[in-house]
Each structure stands twice: as C-alpha cells, then as structure tokens.
C-alpha cells in the first residue's frame, strides 16, 4: 500500500539578514564586542582587544556584555551598534 505523507519541517524560511558593508581597513575604527558573559570570554576578548589595537590599528574597542548569555543581546546594546564600525560577537563558552 502506498502512502502520501506530509513534510514535517518548517518550510518557511526566516527572513534573511543582510551583511553590513565590510570596512576596507580597521585602522582608526571603533570595534564593538558583544560578549555572552561566560568565564572563558574574558581572556578571549582581552586578547582580541590587544590584537586589534596593536596589529590592526583599531582606535577604540567597546566592550558590552549581555545580561543573559542564552538570550539575544539586550535592546540597549543593540541600540549602540550603529555607533561602531565593526562588531565581534559569537556563541559558545
């Protein structure tokens, strides 16, 4: 006996985000970090901060930490993003 069965997946793609224009260079730019606040991020972002300033000539680094590491960034942090030339964020510990 044959079956006709239905697709259990979402089938509705979420709206795609668009990549912001890439800066040609980081020299003199402002870079924002959005950390999830977990223990391992402290050393990681401190090292990245040093590297961006010393090796890439970044003018300033803005550190922000989410109030809940399992939820999207707080609205007030998202509101600041427009002031930065580039942003580093990510998932994981």
């Amino acid at each position, binding site marked *: *006996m*044959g*079956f*006709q*069965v*239905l*697709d*259990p*997946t*979402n*089938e*509705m793609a*979420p*709206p795609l985000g668009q990549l912001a224009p890439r800066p040609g260079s980081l020299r003199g730019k402002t870079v924002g970090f959005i950390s999830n606040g977990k*223990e391992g991020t402290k050393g990681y972002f401190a090292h990245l901060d040093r590297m961006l300033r010393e090796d890439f000539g970044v003018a300033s680094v803005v550190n922000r930490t989410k109030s*809940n590491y*399992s*939820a*999207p960034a707080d609205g007030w942090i998202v509101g600041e993003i427009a002031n930065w030339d580039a942003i580093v964020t990510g998932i994981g*510990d």
Partner: protein
Amino acid sequence: MHLTSRIYDAGDIAAVQELYHSNGWTDGLPIVPPTRDAVEACLDWAMTPPDQLLGIEPVRALAVTAEKLAINAVMAGCLPMHFPAVLTAFTAMLQPEFLLHGATASTGGCAIFVVLNGPIRREIGASGSFNALGNSDRATAVIGRALRLALINILEVRPGGIDRSTLGHPGKFTFCVAEDEEDSAWLSLAEQRGMPKEVSAVTVMAAGSPRQIMNEWTTEPKEILETFAAEMRANLRHYSLHAGNYALVIPKQLREHLISAGWSKTDIAAFIHERARIPRREWADVGKGAVVRDRGDSIYPALESPEHLLVVAAGGPAGGFGAIIPPWLGHKSQAVTMAIGACVDCGPVSG
C-alpha cells in the same frame, strides 16, 4: 481543510521510515506516517485551523503553525485526543519567559519536562502511578515525543545543529508525567499555580534529568523532605549554583506520611526553600575552587522563592522513591503553565 505542507509519495511503510530517517526528520525511532487524514483529524479534534500561528521563535524568526505541529504529533504516535495537550505545551514553550532557543540549543542538554493536570488526564489515559517517570502509558509517551519531534523539524533543533547539548539525557525522547490527582489530597500543580480545578492544564519546564532519592526509614515530614533537599544541595554543588524552578516528584508512600502530618505543597515548598541552599565555598570541595574567589560565604538557595518549586504527586503505590528534577540553567528559563483549550481568565502563568 487546506493543508500547505509538501506531500511525498512513499511505496510502503518501510519507504516512509527511510524517507523520514534519511532526511533527519526523526529522533531515531520509527514514526507513524503523517498522512493528510491523520493530521486533519488532530486539527479537527483541537478545533484549530492549520494556519493558526502558535508563536514565533524570536532568535531565529521561525514561525510555528498548528499544521506543522500536528504533522509532528502524528509522527510521534499521537491520536487526535492527544493533540490539544501538545498544542498547549508548545504554545507554552513559545512564551518569552521560557527562553526556548536557549533552552533547546544549550550545551547544558536539558529536555522539556511536561506535567499534565486536570480532567484531560483521565480522558486520554495518562497515568501518574506506576513507572511515572518512565514508560507509564501511551498518552504521556507520545505527547512528550511530539514536542521533541516538533523541535527537531519545525525549529531545526538537531544534535550538532541548533542542539549543541554535550550530553543531553533520556528525557529528550519524551519527558511527560500526569499528576496522580485522584490519589492525592493536595492541590494539583496547576491549581497551585493559579489554575481553576476544573481546567485541564499543561506545565512545561526546561529540565535536567531526574535525580532519584530514597527514604523508607521515617514517617517524619522533615526527615523525608531533608532527603529531597540534600539532593538539591548536591545539584547546587555538582551542577549549577543558579536558583531556578525545581520539580519534586513525590510518590504515594511518602505523600501519605506528609499528608497525614498535615503538610500541604505550600508547607513543603517553604521547608525546601530554607533547606536547599549552600555556601559558595562548597564548590571548592568538589573541584570548582577556582571560581569561589572571595565569595565563599555567600549563600546560594536553589529556589529564589518557594513558589518556584513544582511539587508533583506521582509514582507507584509502593516505595519511598522520589525525585528532584533540576532546572536547565537557574531561572533564565521559567516554567510556564497554560490551560488547555478555551479558559476565560486563565492566562499563561510563569515563574
């Protein structure tokens, strides 16, 4: 009824299984073929149109419709009468306080613990007696499984994909219990959380695996509850210091001692709130001294307030075996209770 899901042809039952397994659409176990008739019967029973939007998971902007949930419920083995509980549970999971993306993506590997209350339990044959946290009956087995399949397929919560669990636990196949209301003098969990007695309701909680306790050597309420509190303290030490929702599953043998001594669920929660707490310095005893720092004397309760304890009467008639069910990650995800079907003045309750 207008269903919009893509239709696949499969020659026989074996071909259906291979189609679903090979696409990553299962939990590894065989599924029931989700035919149009079976899916429509679920939607009919719940008086829900297929395009009803249950919610949108905000992190990934994925919509969840009744049609897609019904397909996954049929796959899990649900009959139409089981679907209203699935529909309500998934809607509860989509409440912002539940933090669904975090709870299902986290390395912490929690599962969705579901408690059924009210008349629907008897209508669908959900048992809260023997083997309550295991394979106790068809209804709880398929309702819990439906939620997992829906997460896998509708929200792409697949191991190694969105699901980043290090270990997970067996409750990720199914983790649903019906409270044994007929054999308990206590208010049900749903009543305790503000639902009227005549309402059927579902409570969902992002939960770690059950930690079983045993105490058959006392009838004294404080001694019985001290065993539960000790297991919660162990969880605070070995897992996480964050306070959140904990569930206590209390079987009949232990319930009888508590009830005959006049202890209500509120009394139990007050006692556990006081006893289930540790100083941070205890982390040094279990190999986590590196993060004690200068806060060794700080006290960490398992519960921010007694109301965060979910006391559930369930388990077979003999045996002093109970369980604590710990939270995934403190109170970042809050338990949510929702009424099944239409209920005036029965909004979702979280916390």
